[in-house]
């Protein structure tokens, strides 16, 4: 068994008669179309395995009908699995007796819905307190806790309103508050923000990310919006026809899509936005090592002119970045007649970029800075340089293949 907060193993859901037979046929390599035509069984989820780490936001993506909504309902067993296992903290939800399942749902998991699914006859406060009420908490305890989560989502002043008096975005904040009120370690979110307009959607994503900073919960988030998935997802799982075709970080999926279906998802996305300094850098700036003895200005000046380069970087013997100098400056030094070494005062200090710096910050630094900017790896060692010219060719030329 894999480890993880949620581990899904060879999970199947077949709608229709004789699910076991259909699963056998699937294993023998029948297509789901053939099983539907000959056996009348609809394959909802087919042999899905994955695990979700504690505190991760795992986004499930796929076209409608790809089985993502069914899959998450198999995890909290709103839909009965036909075969396979779902472990939450090591407990097998798929095989759990009903009473234990109810207890687990009350204690440790909750769900947020696309249509908000608030109870229209309950006030905002009573809606937020619903899970606690079901679990049999006293009125005082549940109202206090509901009030606290309403405050977290910024709705405490609306506690005594009715749901229909609230806008869509606010209603989903209530949905979120209801899910948070039971203080679960995991939340399932089914297209939670899909019914909201783009501005509100972004706002709710921010609310969610902000909440994750204070209390890290494990979240499985279903979405069909790739921008949303990349914004909030730690990892993304892509579903196609009931199968999980690929799992990875947004970057991994962009870099190595498993098939055209996955690639198509990213077609509409400006993937350049997700480029990092590490991917943008190049060996475009000559390096001179300062191993106790500074490089000689005269030599460097000559070499730069020969290579038609305008800047040089100086590193120490451990490959730590020391500073940058422009050809102009070296030329001035050489002209001044002092045959000095390049170190200390003459070098320009630039704070290097980490390899995972996102594009927008790279651009910001390049705007402020005259010459190229060094990039360092996670150990602090020099690994490359980004110049304005380099960035522009990279953005214009090869988008990500």
């Amino acid at each position, binding site marked *: 068994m894999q480890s993880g907060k949620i581990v899904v193993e060879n999970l199947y859901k077949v709608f229709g008669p004789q699910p076991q037979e259909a699963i056998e046929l699937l294993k023998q390599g029948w297509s789901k179309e053939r099983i539907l035509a000959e056996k009348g069984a609809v394959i909802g989820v087919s042999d899905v395995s994955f695990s979700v780490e504690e505190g991760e936001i795992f986004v499930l993506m796929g076209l409608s009908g790809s089985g993502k909504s069914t899959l998450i*309902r198999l995890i*909290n067993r*709103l839909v009965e699995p036909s075969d396979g296992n779902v472990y939450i903290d090591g407990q097998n939800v798929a095989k759990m007796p009903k009473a234990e399942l*109810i*207890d*687990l*749902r*009350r*204690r440790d*998991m*909750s*769900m947020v*819905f*696309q*249509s908000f*699914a*608030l*109870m*229209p*006859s*309950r006030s905002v406060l009573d809606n937020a307190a*619903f*899970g606690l*009420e*079901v*679990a049999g908490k006293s009125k005082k305890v549940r109202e206090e806790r509901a009030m606290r989560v309403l405050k977290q989502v910024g709705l405490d002043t609306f506690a005594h309103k*009715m749901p229909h008096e609230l806008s869509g975005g606010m209603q989903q904040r209530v949905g979120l508050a*209801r899910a948070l009120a*039971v203080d679960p370690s995991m939340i*399932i979110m089914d297209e939670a923000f899909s019914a909201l307009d783009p501005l509100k959607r972004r706002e709710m994503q921010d609310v969610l990310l902000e909440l994750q900073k204070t209390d890290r919960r494990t979240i499985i988030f279903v979405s069909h919006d790739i921008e949303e998935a990349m914004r909030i997802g730690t990892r993304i799982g892509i579903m196609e026809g009931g199968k999980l075709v690929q799992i990875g970080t947004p970057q991994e999926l962009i870099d190595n899509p498993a098939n055209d279906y996955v690639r198509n998802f990213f077609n509409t996305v400006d993937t350049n936005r997700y480029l990092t300094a590490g991917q943008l850098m190049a060996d475009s700036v000559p390096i001179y090592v300062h191993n106790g003895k500074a490089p000689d200005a005269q030599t460097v000046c000559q070499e730069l002119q020969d290579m038609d380069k305008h800047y040089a970087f100086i590193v120490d013997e451990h490959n730590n970045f020391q500073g940058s100098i422009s050809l102009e400056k070296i030329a001035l030094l050489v002209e001044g007649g002092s045959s000095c070494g390049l170190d200390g005062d003459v070098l320009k200090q630039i704070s290097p970029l980490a390899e995972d710096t996102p594009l927008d910050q790279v651009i910001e630094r390049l705007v402020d800075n005259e010459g190229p900017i060094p990039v360092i790896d996670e150990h602090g060692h020099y690994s490359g340089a980004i110049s304005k010219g380099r960035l522009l060719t990279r953005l214009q030329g090869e988008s990500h293949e």
Partner: protein
Amino acid sequence: MSEKKLDLGSWVNDIVQHLLDNYSDGFDSVGAVVNGFSEGIEWVLMLPPAWLLIAIFVGLGLWRIGYKFAIFTAVAFVLIVLTGFWEQTVVTLGLTFSATLISLLLGIPLGIWAARSERVATIIRPILDFMQTMPAFVYLIPAAMLFGLGRVPGIIATVIFAMPPAVRLTNLGIRQVNKEIIEAGQSFGCTPRQLLFKVQLPNAMPSIMAGVNQTIMMALSMVIIASMVGAGGLGNDVLASIQRLDIGLGFESGMAVVLLAIILDRITESFGTPQTANRSSLFSWVNSKLQRQ
């Protein structure tokens, strides 16, 4: 009538006769319970003086609907008192209430059951069709045979006639609750019982209340007809006016029925729609004043 190939009617006669011969004790005890129940309700309604009962209805109208309707209620009841039909109206009200309560007591649980079981729903449906569309006079007579003349067969016949909307609209209301709302209930750990009482029934309430409203209206119309088996109330006057061809009496008693129907309809209807702040009711006006302070 052409010659019969199949004599269904004689079978029914046999069945009723069989019931009469073998189960009359059972029917007597059911009759006694119904009779006691309805007498109790009538007694409660007769207890306060006319003005107090009127005041209660006017108050309900003021609370649930608005001052205009409260004025209408007051005028309507005064009209009934002045035309001398007050007592019969209260009897009719009592019969309507008893029949309605019995209908709801049986109908709502049956509706819930039908909503939870496809099989029950399939079995119940034609029975409800039968109860609703079989002309009421047809079962008034066996009811009178089985329970004897008086208020009991009237109430039983009324229950048969008035119960279907309560069953149907309870069933429909529960089935129409948004699927995600049900899932929300389940995902937060509702037991089936909690799901019913905390999620399904509250969300089906508008539909169930529409059923209650329908049941009351149908019960009111039926208790008038039930005067033919001696149920009493305004129906007696309507019946008398027909027998004597007394158009004036017919209009007066009929008017009392109509006014009662309008009042009962609007008040029960108001319980099906949630109260909103902008309603012109005194209650919300007072409420808003209090909140401002």
